[in-house]
């Protein structure tokens, strides 16, 4: 009898964390318009934020958004400061060693950005000796290091800084996100005279690339719930509706779009 009571009490106590786990903390960034940005009053908005909200809605969990600087994003996830990252994080092999990713939720190519007429071609030979500005610790930086060994690389801490430095004349050409460069720079007064140049460059490999939601390794239950919720919002049109508020073109990963049709 006494044992039963003890175990009853224990069950109740142990059940509390299970309830609490229906609260999910999500790491977001805020320096990557139009995917995430912070208004002067501190309010977060953007496509990443909308995706996070929609997923929480579908998973029927209460979510807290935790703003975190890009550089400490994965460490903060590992340190349990939040449970997943919705911050336009490209799925790469290096990151896969440290975190698990959901299915990709969007995919946009990278572009070179330069002052109009400065360059006509963008091969490693053409850009040898030139200073290329890029986001530090990003797949784009890795791409440049691998493919443009004779160029000088100016690696900055935040994506908008890539364009600030380009406008300031600190580099000759920038390598950035096709979407962020347009939104945060080219469509603003500072971006006057600058254009995206060369062909779009996809840094993701067919079938597995794109931008995903990062979770701690072996958090399989959460990952399956996220993937299910993601498939749901993609299938019922919620995704396209949200995306159309930001983009005039399709950013859904090819594989996901093919699966829908």
């Amino acid at each position, binding site marked *: 009898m006494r044992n039963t009571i003890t175990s009853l009490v224990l069950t109740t106590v142990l059940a509390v964390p299970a309830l609490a786990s229906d609260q999910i903390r999500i790491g977001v960034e805020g320096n990557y318009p139009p995917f995430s940005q912070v208004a002067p009053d501190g309010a977060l908005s953007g496509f990443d934020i909308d995706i996070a909200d929609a997923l929480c809605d579908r998973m029927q969990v209460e979510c807290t958004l935790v703003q975190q600087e890009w550089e400490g994003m*994965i460490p903060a996830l590992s340190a349990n400061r939040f449970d997943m990252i919705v911050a336009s994080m490209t799925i790469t092999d290096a990151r896969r060693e*440290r975190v698990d990713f959901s299915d990709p939720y969007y995919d946009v190519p990278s572009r070179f950005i330069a002052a109009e007429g400065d360059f006509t071609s963008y091969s490693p030979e053409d850009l040898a000796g030139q200073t290329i500005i890029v986001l*530090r*610790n990003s797949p784009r930086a890795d791409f440049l290091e691998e493919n443009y060994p004779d160029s000088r690389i*100016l690696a900055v801490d935040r994506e908008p800084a890539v364009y600030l430095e380009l406008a300031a004349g*600190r580099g000759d050409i920038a390598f950035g996100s096709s979407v962020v460069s347009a939104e945060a720079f080219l469509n603003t007064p500072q971006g006057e005279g600058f254009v995206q140049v060369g062909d779009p460059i996809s840094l993701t490999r067919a079938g597995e690339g794109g931008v995903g939601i990062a979770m701690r390794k072996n958090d399989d239950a959460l990952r399956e719930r996220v993937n299910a919720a993601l498939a749901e919002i993609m299938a019922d049109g919620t995704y396209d509706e949200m995306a159309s508020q930001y983009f005039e073109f399709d950013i859904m990963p090819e594989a996901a779009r093919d699966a829908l049709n």
Partner: protein
Amino acid sequence: MINWSIIIEMLPAFWRGLQITLILLCTAGLAGLALAVPLSLARASSHPLLSWPVFIFTYILRGTPLLVQLFIIYYGLPQLDIVRQSAFWPFFRDPFFCAWLAFTLNTTAYTTEIFAGAIRNTPAGEVEAARAMGLSRTQVLRDIFWPGAWRRALPQYGNEVVQLMHATALASTITIVEILRVGRDVYYNHLVITESFGMAAVFFLALTVVLTLIFRILEKLFLRHLDPRDSANVSPSETTKVTVNA
């Protein structure tokens, strides 16, 4: 547990970071020292046209955070067309030059005040005595005035150099890959504290130890007269030097 394989893997990067830190420290430190000598004379001058401009310069530089100065030079100046069209633009374009300039101006301000304080504390009698001995103005300045001021300033100046060395870590914010930046990269790539920021701390600490030792040796050399035992047995070479000066 410390993961030694990460440390060994990252040692070359830390080594390069250490070189950048040292280059920044030495170039900014020496330039600051060279600028502080004439500026401190002006600052200690009784003529307000000489002392006031220098006072305003050091007041502003000491009254604002170094990080703010660094950002104004690095982010602010390129926004001015006058800077971008000037012959100096190739310099301001370079992050390293911006860091060097910020650190040089900052350490110049502090060193100027340290030296000016030492100059003001020069006993009037010392200079009078030297003049009475028939030494020329240049001789007084070179042989009596500066050596005395330098001795009085030395302990404080040693602190300033150590602080300048610590301040070079700020260069990591403007894309310069010095010791702290290497530490941050290790942290980002391996998610470890001891092997990233811990290693950076070890490097800075080692630099502090070396600098402190250097200044202790300098103090022993220049402040020997304050050590009762050491000043009692004057070495022959010291005797000759004294004779020459007299």
